[in-house]
C-alpha cells in the first residue's frame, strides 16, 4: 500500500518553474495561432517569440523565492538566474535576425519559432537543476528542437548537417545517460549536491568507476561544447545552417552546457582531483590550439568562425579548470562579450546572404566574395573589420576584456602548479587567432574586388538588421564601459550561489 502523500501547493515553489512555463506556453500558443490562420506573416511569430521571451526574462529577473522547488529537482541559484538571463537576452537578439529581406523556407513554418521557444525552455531547465535526470530532460528537449530546426533549412548541405548533428547528438546523449547511471551506481543519488557530499565523505571510494562516469560526462558535454576531439560536427553543421542560426548555435547552447559542466566538474576541481585536472587541462589546451590551427586554413568565413568558436570554447574551459570565483565570473564575462562580437560577425554574413549557392563559382560566404568590400561599402567593411578584430582580442573591443579577465584568472590561480603555462598558452593562442581573423580584413581592405559584389552586399538587409548590428557594433566598441557593471552584476549572482 503506497502511503498517500499530500503536498502543499506553496511547497512546490512554483516560481522556479514559471519562466520555463511561459516559454513552453508561448510555443503552444504559436502553434495554435497557426492552426486558426495559416496565412500570417513571419513578423508576427518573431514578435510573439520576443514577447514571450521578454516575459520570461521579467520572471527570471524578478525571481525572489526559495532556491529549491519541485521536490528539490529545481535549483534556481545565482548561476541559474545569470545563465537564464544571458541566454534569454541573446535568444531575443538572435530571433530578431530572422527579420531578413529574403524569404526562407524555415521562416514560413511557425513551428520554427515554437521549436525555438522549446529549445530555450530546454536550456533553462538545464541550468536550473542539479538533478542529473532533470538536466538530461532539458538537454534532450533543447537538442531535439535544434536538430529539427537545422533540418528545416532546405538546402543540400542541410540534410547532411542535420543527420550528422543528430547521430552525434544521440551518441552524446547515450554518454550522458551512462555517466549519470554510473554516478547513481556509486552514490545512490542523481542530485549533484548529494553526489558531491557522498563522494567527499567516502573519500572517492570506487575511484575507477567514478573516473568512468567522468569520462562519459566529458564526452557528452564535450560534444555540446564542441571540445576537441568531439568537435567534428561543428563546421558541417554551421555550414549547413543559415548564418543567423549558426551564430545562435555557437553561443546560446554553450551557455547552458557550460553551466552543467561547471556544476558537475566543480565537485572534482575543488577536490583537486589530479585526473580530472589533467584531463581538463589537456582538452582545454588541445581545443584552443586545434581549433585555431584548423581555422587558419579555412577560406569560407562561416567555417572559419565555426572553428574559431571551438577555440573560444576551449578558452572558457580553462576557467572551469581554474575553478576560482574570478574564473567563474570570467566564464560569463567572456561569453557575454564574445557573444556580442560573434553575433556581429554572423550578423554581417547574414545581412549579405545571397540566395544563389554560388557567386561566380565562389560560395557567398567565401572570403573571396568579400574582396575589396571597402570600395563598395566602407561602413560595412569597417564594422565587419571591427567585429573580426574584436574576436581576435585586439583592445579595446569586447572580447579583449574577456580574454584579459580569463588570462588574469589563470595568472592569479596560484593553487595550480601550471597556471603560468596555462596563461601563456592562452595568450599565445590569441596570437595564432589573430592571423585568421585578420585575413578577412586583408581581403576587404587590401584586395581588388570582384564585380559580382553588388548583388551580394546587403542583399538580405532590412532596417531591423542594420539597427541590430549597429547596436552590437556600439556595444563592442564601447565595451570598456560595459565591463565594470557586468562584473559587478555577475559577481553578485556568482557569489550568492557560492561558486
Amino acid at each position, binding site marked *: 500500500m503506497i502511503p498517500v502523500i499530500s503536498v502543499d501547493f506553496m511547497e512546490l515553489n512554483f516560481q522556479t518553474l514559471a519562466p520555463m512555463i511561459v516559454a513552453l506556453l508561448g510555443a503552444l500558443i504559436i502553434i495554435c495561432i497557426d492552426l486558426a490562420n495559416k496565412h500570417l506573416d513571419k513578423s508576427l511569430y518573431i514578435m510573439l517569440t520576443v514577447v514571450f521571451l521578454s516575459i520570461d526574462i521579467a520572471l527570471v529577473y524578478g525571481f525572489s523565492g526559495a532556491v529549491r522547488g519541485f521536490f528539490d529537482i529545481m535549483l534556481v541559484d545565482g548561476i541559474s538566474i545569470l545563465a537564464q538571463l544571458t541566454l534569454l537576452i541573446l535568444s531575443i537578439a538572435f530571433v530578431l535576425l530572422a527579420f531578413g529581406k529574403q524569404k526562407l523556407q524555415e521562416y514560413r513554418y511557425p513551428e520554427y519559432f515554437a521549436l525555438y521557444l522549446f529549445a530555450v525552455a530546454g536550456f533553462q531547465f538545464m541550468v536550473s537543476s542539479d538533478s542529473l535526470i532533470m538536466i538530461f530532460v532539458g538537454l534532450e528537449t533543447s537538442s531535439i528542437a535544434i536538430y529539427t530546426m537545422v533540418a528545416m533549412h532546405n538546402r543540400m548541405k542541410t540534410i547532411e548537417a542535420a543527420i550528422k548533428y543528430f547521430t552525434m547528438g544521440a551518441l552524446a546523449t547515450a554518454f550522458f545517460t551512462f555517466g549519470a547511471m554510473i554516478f547513481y551506481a556509486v552514490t545512490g543519488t542523481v542530485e549533484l549536491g548529494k553526489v558531491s557530499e557522498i563522494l567527499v565523505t567516502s573519500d572517492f571510494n570506487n575511484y575507477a568507476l567514478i573516473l568512468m562516469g567522468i569520462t562519459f560526462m566529458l564526452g557528452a558535454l564535450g560534444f555540446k561544447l564542441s571540445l576537441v576531439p568531439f568537435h567534428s560536427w561543428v563546421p558541417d553543421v554551421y555550414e549547413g545552417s543559415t548564418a543567423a542560426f549558426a551564430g545562435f548555435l555557437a553561443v546560446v547552447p554553450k551557455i547552458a552546457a557550460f553551466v552543467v559542466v561547471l556544476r558537475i566538474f566543480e565537485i572534482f576541481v575543488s577536490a583537486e582531483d589530479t585526473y580530472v585536472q589533467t584531463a581538463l587541462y589537456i582538452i582545454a589546451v588541445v581545443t584552443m590550439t586545434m581549433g585555431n590551427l584548423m581555422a587558419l586554413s579555412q577560406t569560407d568565413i562561416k567555417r572559419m568562425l565555426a572553428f574559431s568558436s571551438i577555440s573560444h570554447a576551449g578558452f572558457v574551459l580553462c576557467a572551469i579548470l581554474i575553478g576560482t570565483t574570478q574564473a567563474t565570473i570570467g566564464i560569463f564575462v567572456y561569453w557575454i562579450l564574445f557573444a556580442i562580437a560573434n553575433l556581429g560577425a554572423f550578423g554581417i554574413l547574414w545581412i549579405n546572404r545571397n540566395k544563389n549557392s554560388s557567386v561566380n563559382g565562389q560560395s557567398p560566404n567565401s572570403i573571396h566574395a568579400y574582396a575589396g568590400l*571597402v570600395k563598395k561599402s*566602407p561602413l560595412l567593411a569597417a564594422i565587419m573589420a571591427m567585429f573580426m*578584430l574584436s574576436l581576435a582580442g*585586439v*583592445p*579595446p573591443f569586447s572580447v*579583449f*576584456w574577456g580574454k*584579459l*579577465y580569463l*588570462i*588574469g584568472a589563470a*595568472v*592569479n590561480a596560484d593553487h595550480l602548479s601550471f597556471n*603560468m603555462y596555462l*596563461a*601563456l598558452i592562452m*595568450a*599565445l593562442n*590569441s*596570437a595564432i587567432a*589573430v*592571423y585568421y581573423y*585578420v585575413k578577412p580584413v*586583408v581581403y576587404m*581592405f*587590401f584586395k581588388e574586388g570582384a564585380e559580382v559584389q553588388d548583388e551580394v552586399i546587403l542583399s538580405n538587409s532590412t532596417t531591423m538588421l542594420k539597427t541590430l548590428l549597429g547596436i552590437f557594433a556600439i556595444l563592442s566598441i564601447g565595451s*570598456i*564601459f560595459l*565591463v*565594470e557593471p557586468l*562584473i*559587478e552584476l555577475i*559577481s553578485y549572482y556568482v557569489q550568492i550561489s557560492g561558486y
Partner: protein
Amino acid sequence: MEHILSILIFFPALAATVGFVVDKNSIRAYALTVTAIEFVLSLVLWYGFDTQNPLMQFTEFFPLIASYGISYSVGVDGISLFLVIMTTLMTMIAVIGLSEKRDLKHLLITVLYLEMTMVAVFLVLDAIIFYTFWELSLVPMFYIVGAWGGKLRIYSTLKFFLYTFTGSLIMLVGMLYLGYVYFQTTGHWSFNLQDWYMLQLPFSMQLWLFAAFFFGFAIKVPMFPFHTWLPYAHGQAPTIGSVILAAVLLKMGTYGFIRFSLPLFPDASVHFTYPMAILALIAIVYTAMVAYAQEDMKQVIAYSSVSHMGVIILGTFALNVEGIGGSVFLMISHGIVSGALFMLVGMIYERRHTKMIKDFGGLAVSMPKFATIFAVMLMASVGLPLTIGFVGEFLSLLGFFRVSPILTVIAGLTIIFGAVYMLVMYKKSFFGPCDNPENQKLEDIKGREMVALIPLVALVIILGIYPKVILAPLDSTVSHLIETMHTKAISPATKARILELNSIGEVKK
C-alpha cells in the same frame, strides 16, 4: 590646463570621427589644421610644464574597471613630454609633406586615429590602458601599410602585425601577473604604474617579469634578433607610414623600457645590462653592415634605424643620468632625422618611381636644394658634432663608457659605420656625372615640400647647437628615475652598482 592631457589624446580621434563628413577634396586642409592644433596643444603643455618637478604632472584619474583595478590614468613627465611633442610635430610634418593621391580621405583619417594612439601610449600611466593603446596603434598602421604600400604590402603588414601582437601578448601576461603581485602585497587591485613603483619585487620574480616585458618592447624597438619585420614594413610602407613608423612607433619600445622595465625591475635591469648591451651591439654593428649592402635607399635608412635604436638601448641600459638622458634625446633626434630622411626618399621616389641607388647619380646637379637638405639630415644621422644626432649619440656612449669602455668602443664604431654607408649612398646617388637623362630633368623640391623640411632642418641645427632646451628638463626626471631605481633595488650590490654608474664627473672621495 585641467584636462590638457585628455584633450591631447582624444582631440585627434574626435576630429577623425567628425572628419568622415568632410569632403574628400578638402580633407587635406582639415587634417593639416587638426594636426597643427594638436601640435600647438602640445606646445601649450610644454609651456605649462614645471621643469623643476620630476614627478608626474597634469595627472588625471578616472576608474574604469574598479573591481579589477583598471583606471584611466594619465600624467606627463620630462621623458614623455618631449616624446609627445615630437609625435605631434612629426605627424604634422608628415601630413604637410604628404603626396599620396589614392583614397586620401581614408588615409588622413587613419593617420589622425594613429596620432591618438601614439600620444596616448606616451601619456597613459595605467598598464592595461597603456597596453590597449599600444595594441590599438597597430591597427591604423596595419591599414596604412596594407592599403597604400608597395608590391609585398600584404605580406609585410601581416608580418608587422603578427610579430608585434605576439610579443605584446607575452607582455600582457607579465602585466597581469604584476597586478596580481600588487594585489597580494597590498590587498587591493591596481594596474596604475605609480602604485607599481612602490612595489619591491624579489629578484627571481624581477627576472621573469623583465623577460616578459622584454618580448613586448624588444619586438617593437626592434632589437636584434626580432628586427626582421622592420625592413619589410619600411620597404613597403608609403612615405607617411615610414615617417610615422620610424619617428614614433619604434620609440614606443624604448620608451617602454624606460617607463616600465627600469623602475619596476631595477635589479633585473642591472643583472641584464650585459645581455641587453650585447644584443644592442649586434644590432649596431650587424645592421650597419647590412645597411651598407643595400641597393635600395629606403632599406639603407631602415637598417640604419635598427642600428640607431641599438645605440638608444645601449644608452638606456647604461643606467646613469647621462646614458638615459642621452637615449631619450636620441629618441627625439632619431625621430626627427629618420622621419626627414624617409620623407626625402619619398620625394625622390615620387619623381622617379624608383628607390634604387644605381638608378641615380649626380642628383646634386639637378636638385641642389634637395641635395643640401639631404646632406644636412645625413650628417645628423651619422652624428656630426653640432647636429642633433651628435648630442644623443655622444651622451649615450658616454653613459655606457662608465659600464664598459670596451663595449663602448665597439659601439662607437656606429659613427664610423654610419658614416660609411650613408656617405657611400650619398656619393653614389648625388655626386658623379648626371648622365641619366631622366635624372637631368628632375624638378627640385619646392613649396609644400620645403615647408615640411625647413622646420626639421632648423631643429636639427638649433638643437644640435643648444640641446639644453631639452636636456635640462630631462635631467630632473631622469635623476628622479635613477633615485627610484636606487631606493627600489633589493640587493645591496645593485644599489652600489647604480651609485657607481652615476659617478661620472664627480670628484672621487
